């Protein structure tokens, strides 16, 4: 820096702020001023370092010293020792948990490796509307390598060796899928990219397409080469206008540069890609429904087999992969399967992109190696729970997944562990919930979504999910019985076992997993007519404390149904029979006399 010799960076992330980082910042500023150092040293507040468990964090530049768990009182010592005398304050340095030694330079700290960006490698780095920026980062080198140095069989063998599994939810091995598709011969074959992304709260695929569209185009061409297809289709929902726009620009540029089209790199391989817009129905993300929708038919699933590899788009052999699956392909070709399969766990290789949402401080897009624990994701990368509240559960897998409780915080995240824990990887939505979230309501939310999105083709899903929703509604209104809980469970199992497609087969998962993990909460709703999280409006009880009520009449004037009676300057009362639990009185009372339980 021109003027300042040294910078003190104080974390101003929400997590650190809760532990007094504001005071630390003020102390540093004050001390620097007092000691007349303000010409040389600048104090700066930064965003989250992603290491909130050890917060508050203070970092000193230019020497990259990283102090953890700093208190406001430590500021003086850091200034006197480190800034003035150039001696690091040992006791505040980060301690490496494995080696049990202090590490001062943050570049050598393990937690910086918590995120590795493979699928997101270019997102936020390149201008997605300029193909040359992609090319500058080795773009289209992988397809070049495949076409000039590898046979289709070798490409498939490489993908198989990499251990890559489908990121669209199912986790099917990608190399194997390509091999199946390569075995069917026909005059026309297709590569399809599934960009439907229907999970509520998910935006991983959208971000990849908006930030790095060429990586998907290149991967589709590689897939085409290895399975013997010369046409690619991207099925994308019309609600993603920016992603569509960037894809269109990317396809146009790739064609102009000769990287898509006829005789790519002067070989006899040709590949073309077109877009197909979907109306955005959840079921259309299911591959057979997606194919029907692209054919101009109703977006309804059909039983498998036949799998798309045998009879897909226009009854021709078709390979369907997810956006993120494709985004990994060029890296695997460029860096080699043996580079890729060193990352991750035994059966789940590479990384996974997650969209972190809900009651978490750092809502955002992250990419972590498979095998990272939920605790690392939530407390280190995600910055912890909002407003310092208690972690309750995290929902993964969207409407097909389930809730994981704090017992699973230290479970390494991979396909198999999540299934074993009663949830699933899904496409990567991760919704964090705190003590204020009612689990019955969460299950109801997903069921409502499913009832809307069920295509209605088969009875178990069409009627079963509706009944499931009604039972949940009954419970949240305080009318449920213990028998209803058994019914919920049994009906859930029936719907799972007998539905035609993946939507119905997984739809009851949010119910089953909450029943499993939060049975007490269901019982509280049914037996005690109470919602422990205080979210179910119908189970709330508003009462006026006669001790605190001064009889100002504000509540009575604001009650829409005239449930409150009382004379001026006398304690008022609420008639529970009439009260509709709207909460108006609770909000208006200036004396805190009204309680909500």
């Amino acid at each position, binding site marked *: 820096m021109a003027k300042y010799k040294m910078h003190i960076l104080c974390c101003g992330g929400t997590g650190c702020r809760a532990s007094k980082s504001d005071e630390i910042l003020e102390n540093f500023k004050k001390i620097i001023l007092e000691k007349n150092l303000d010409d040389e040293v*600048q104090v700066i*507040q930064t*965003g989250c370092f992603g290491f909130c468990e050890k917060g508050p964090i203070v970092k000193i530049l230019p020497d990259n010293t990283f102090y953890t768990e700093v208190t406001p009182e430590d500021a003086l010592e850091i200034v006197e020792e480190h800034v003035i005398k150039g001696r690091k304050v040992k006791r505040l340095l980060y301690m490496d948990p494995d080696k049990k030694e202090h590490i001062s330079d943050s570049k050598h700290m393990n937690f910086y490796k918590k995120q*590795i960006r493979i699928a997101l490698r270019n997102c936020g780095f390149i201008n997605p509307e300029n193909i040359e920026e992609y*090319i500058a980062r080795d773009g289209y080198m992988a397809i070049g390598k495949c076409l000039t140095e590898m046979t289709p069989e070798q490409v498939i063998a490489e993908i198989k060796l990499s251990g890559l599994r489908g990121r669209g939810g199912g986790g099917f091995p990608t190399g194997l899928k390509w091999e199946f598709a390569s075995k069917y011969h026909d005059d026309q074959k297709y590569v399809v990219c599934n960009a439907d992304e229907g999970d509520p709260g998910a*935006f991983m695929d959208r971000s990849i397409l*908006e930030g790095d569209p060429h990586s998907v185009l290149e991967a589709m061409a590689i897939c085409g080469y290895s399975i013997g297809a010369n046409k690619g289709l991207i099925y994308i929902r019309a609600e993603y206008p920016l992603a569509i726009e960037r894809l269109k620009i990317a396809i146009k540029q790739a064609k102009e540069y000769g990287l898509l089209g006829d005789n790519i790199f*002067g070989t006899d391989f040709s590949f073309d890609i077109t877009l197909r817009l979907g109306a955005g129905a959840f079921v259309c993300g299911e591959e057979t429904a997606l194919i029907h929708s692209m054919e101009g038919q109703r977006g309804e699933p059909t039983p498998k087999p036949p799998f798309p590899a045998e009879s897909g788009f226009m009854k021709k052999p078709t390979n369907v992969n997810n956006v993120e699956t494709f985004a990994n392909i060029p890296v695997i070709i460029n860096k080699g399967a043996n580079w890729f399969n060193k990352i991750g766990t035994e059966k789940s290789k590479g990384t996974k992109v997650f969209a972190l949402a809900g009651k978490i401080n750092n*809502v*955002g897009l992250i990419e972590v190696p498979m095998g990272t624990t939920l605790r690392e994701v939530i407390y280190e990368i995600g910055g912890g729970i909002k407003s310092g509240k208690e972690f309750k559960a995290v929902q993964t897998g969207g409407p097909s997944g389930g809730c994981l409780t704090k017992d699973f915080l230290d479970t390494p995240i991979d396909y198999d562990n999540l299934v074993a824990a009663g949830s699933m990887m899904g496409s990567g939505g991760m919704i964090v919930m705190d003590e204020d979230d009612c689990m019955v309501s969460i299950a109801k939310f997903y069921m409502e979504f499913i009832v809307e999105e069920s295509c209605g083709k088969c009875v178990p899903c069409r009627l079963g999910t509706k009944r499931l929703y009604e039972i949940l509604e009954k419970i949240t209104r305080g009318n449920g019985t213990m028998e209803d809980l058994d019914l919920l469970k049994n009906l859930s199992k029936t719907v799972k076992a007998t539905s035609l497609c993946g939507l119905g087969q997984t739809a009851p998962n949010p119910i089953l997993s909450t029943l499993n993990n939060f049975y007490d909460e269901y019982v509280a709703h049914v037996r005690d007519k109470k919602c422990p999280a205080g979210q179910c409006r119908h189970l709330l009880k508003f009462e006026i404390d006669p001790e605190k009520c001064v009889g100002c009449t504000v509540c009575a004037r604001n009650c829409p149904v005239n449930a409150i009676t009382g004379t001026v300057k006398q304690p008022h009362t609420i008639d529970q029979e009439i009260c509709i639990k709207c909460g108006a009185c609770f909000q208006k009372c200036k004396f805190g006399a009204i309680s909500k339980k």
Partner: protein
Amino acid sequence: MKRIKSLDDLKKLSKNAKNKFDLREKANDPDKVVQIKVAMATCGIASGAKETMDFLIEELDRQSIKAIVTQTGCMGYCYAEPTIEVTMPNNDPIVFGYVDTKKAKEIVEKYIKKNELVDGILPVNYETIDKQ
């Protein structure tokens, strides 16, 4: 515009493109410029990244500061949108969060013109695959 007819063509173009962008970032010639990337994905745009980008282009132009302002995809810090990355000549890139037009003005006045840091830096907390 060149049509790529062989892998060699691509390698050449890639090298040229690399040089071009490296120059932009680490130039030590007198033509060195400030490079700014604005995260323009749906989440960024929804929080006003477009206004920030327009403002930066106009403001830098008005003050005759040589800069290249480009758009890029989501940097992942959705909680701190709009986010921008500023690379001063001979310096590492720095990411700033919550950059509305007011913050953008402060960044121009302090960081870009005087090389002083300002509040709101977002530490990069992930590893890229380039190094590996």
